[in-house]
C-alpha cells in the first residue's frame, strides 16, 4: 500500500459501515455463542440422508462384528470429533461389537477424556479391556494401514500401554481367524486432514470391499465434505459424518443427545450474525459506490 496523498474526505455513514471494528464482530459472536449455550433454544436439526446412511452402516451389522476405529484428529477439533467418537462407541457397545481403536500420539493423549464419558456404558455392557476392546498405538500413514489390514500382528505386538497381545484374548482371537481383514467388518475413521480420506478409501474400500464386504465410514470436518462427497456418491464410503452437525444428527438417531447437539444452536446463531455483518459491509460498499458514481468526477 503506497502512501497516497491524503484526500480529506468526510467519512460518510457508508464508510463507517465498511470499517466496523472486527473485534465487535468477534465479541458479538462469542457472547451469543456463550449465552445460547447456557440457555439453549432447541432449534430443529433436520436429518440428512448421509447421516441416516452412516447410522445404518453400523446399525445393520450383526452383533459381535468387529469395528476398527482410526483416530487422527488434532487438539483443535476435539469439540467436533469427541462427540462423534463417543456416539460411535456407545452405538458399538450397545450392539456388542468388538472394538479395536488405533491411532498415533495425539488422540492417545486425548482418549482419557472420552473414556471418562463412556465408562458407564462399558460397565453396563460388561466390556473388559483386552477381551472386548483394545487401543493400539500405531503411528504412520497409508502403507501402515495396508499392513494393519493384512496382518496386525506384523505391525505391533503390544497395545498402547505396552501390554503384549498374547495376554489379550481379542488379539489372539484375531490372529486365529487368519488374515486380519477377516476380522474387520467396519472401519470408522476421524480426521482433520484430507489425505486420510483418500488413503482410507484406497486401503479399506478399494482393496477389501469386494472380498469381505467391509464397510467404511468416517467423520471429517465440514470443510472437507465437498472433496470427500464423490467417494460417498460412488459408494466407496458407506457414510460420512459431516463434522459437528453430523455428530449431532448421529446423537439424535441414536437417541442419546450429547455434546454435539448442544452446539447446533450456537452454529445457527453465529452463522446468522456473520451473515448480517457481511450484509452490512456490502451495503456500505454499494451505497458508497452508488453515491460516488452520482457525484460529478473529481471527488476521488
Amino acid at each position, binding site marked *: 500500500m503506497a502512501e497516497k496523498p491524503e484526500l480529506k474526505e468526510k467519512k460518510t455513514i457508508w464508510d463507517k459501515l465498511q470499517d466496523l471494528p472486527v473485534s465487535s464482530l468477534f465479541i458479538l459472536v462469542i457472547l451469543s455463542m456463550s449465552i445460547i449455550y447456557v440457555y439453549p433454544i432447541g432449534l430443529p436439526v433436520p436429518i440428512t440422508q448421509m447421516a441416516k446412511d452412516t447410522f445404518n452402516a453400523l446399525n445393520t451389522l450383526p452383533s459381535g462384528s468387529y469395528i476398527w476405529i482410526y483416530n487422527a484428529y488434532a487438539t483443535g477439533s476435539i469439540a467436533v470429533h469427541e462427540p462423534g467418537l463417543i456416539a460411535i462407541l456407545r452405538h458399538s457397545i450397545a450392539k456388542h461389537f468388538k472394538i479395536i481403536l488405533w491411532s498415533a500420539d495425539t488422540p492417545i493423549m486425548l482418549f482419557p477424556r472420552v473414556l471418562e464419558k463412556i465408562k458407564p456404558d462399558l460397565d453396563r455392557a460388561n466390556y473388559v479391556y483386552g477381551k472386548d476392546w483394545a487401543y493400539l498405538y500405531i503411528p504412520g500413514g497409508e502403507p501402515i494401514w495396508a499392513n494393519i489390514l493384512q496382518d496386525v500382528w506384523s505391525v505391533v505386538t503390544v497395545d498402547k500401554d505396552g501390554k503384549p497381545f498374547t495376554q489379550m484374548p481379542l488379539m489372539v482371537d484375531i490372529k486365529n481367524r487368519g488374515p486380519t481383514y477377516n476380522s474387520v467388518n467396519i472401519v470408522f475413521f476421524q480426521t482433520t486432514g484430507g489425505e486420510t480420506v483418500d488413503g482410507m478409501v484406497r486401503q479399506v474400500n478399494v482393496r477389501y470391499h469386494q472380498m469381505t464386504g467391509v464397510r467404511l465410514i468416517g467423520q471429517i470436518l465440514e470443510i472437507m465434505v465437498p472433496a470427500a462427497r464423490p467417494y460417498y456418491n460412488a459408494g466407496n464410503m458407506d457414510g460420512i459424518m459431516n463434522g459437528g452437525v453430523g455428530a449431532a444428527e448421529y446423537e439424535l438417531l441414536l437417541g442419546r443427545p450429547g455434546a454435539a447437539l448442544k452446539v447446533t444452536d450456537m452454529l445457527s446463531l453465529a452463522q446468522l450474525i*456473520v451473515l448480517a455483518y457481511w450484509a452490512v459491509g456490502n451495503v456500505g460498499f454499494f451505497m458508497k459506490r452508488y453515491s460516488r458514481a452520482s457525484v460529478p468526477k473529481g471527488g476521488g
Partner: protein
Amino acid sequence: MEFIDIVGVWIAAILTIGITSISFKETFFSRWSEVTYLAMGTLTSIVWFPTDLRRYVLERVAPGGAWIPLGPRGGYLFVIFAVLIGIIAYGRYSRKYFWLYRYYLSLSVGTGIGVAMRGFIGANFLDQIRANFLSLVVPGDAYTSFNNTVMCVVVLSSLIYFIFTFKAIENPTVRRISIIGRYFMMIAFGVTFGTGITTRINQYAGRIEFLIIEWLGIKPIA
C-alpha cells in the same frame, strides 16, 4: 477437585482467552500466551525424544538382528549410518560442512517425490479421468442427464483455464470458455469458504464449552 487441578483449569482458561485475544490485537497478554504455546509446541519434540530414540534406534539395534542393511527392521549398519546422517544434519550450523546434510535431504526429498508421483498418477489423474465418463443422455432421467452435462462442462472448461503453453488459448472463443471455467471454480470456492465457517464455529464451540462448564462452573439449562 485437588488444588493442582484447579490451578490447571485456571491456566487453561487464561491461555484460551489469551490465544483468542491474538486475533483481536497485539498486547502483552496475547504475546505471552503465544510464547507459552510456542514453548509447549517446541518442548514436545524434546519430551518425545527418549521414546523416539528407543523406538527408532535402540529397538532396531536390539540383539538378534542382522548386519545386512535390508528388510523391514533394517540391519545394524543401516541404523548406525542413519544415526550418523541424523547427527550430520547439524552440519548446517557450520559454513564449511553445510553440504553434509544434503545426504539426509536427498533421501527425504526422493521419498517424498516418489510417494507423490506414484500416488498422484492413479488417484489424481487416471481415476479422475475415468470419473468423467458420464452419459449426457440418461434415458428417462432428465435430472441426471442435466447434472452430468453440467459436470462435464465444468471439468472441461476449468481444465482449459490451466493451459500454459498453447497459443490457442489466446483465441477469443477458447478464452471465453476458460473464463466460464474460472467462474465455475469461483462458485465452488465460495461454497467451500462458506462451509469453512461452519467448521470453525463448531471447533470454537468446544472452547466456549470448556470456559463455561469447567472454568466458570455454569451448568447449561437442559
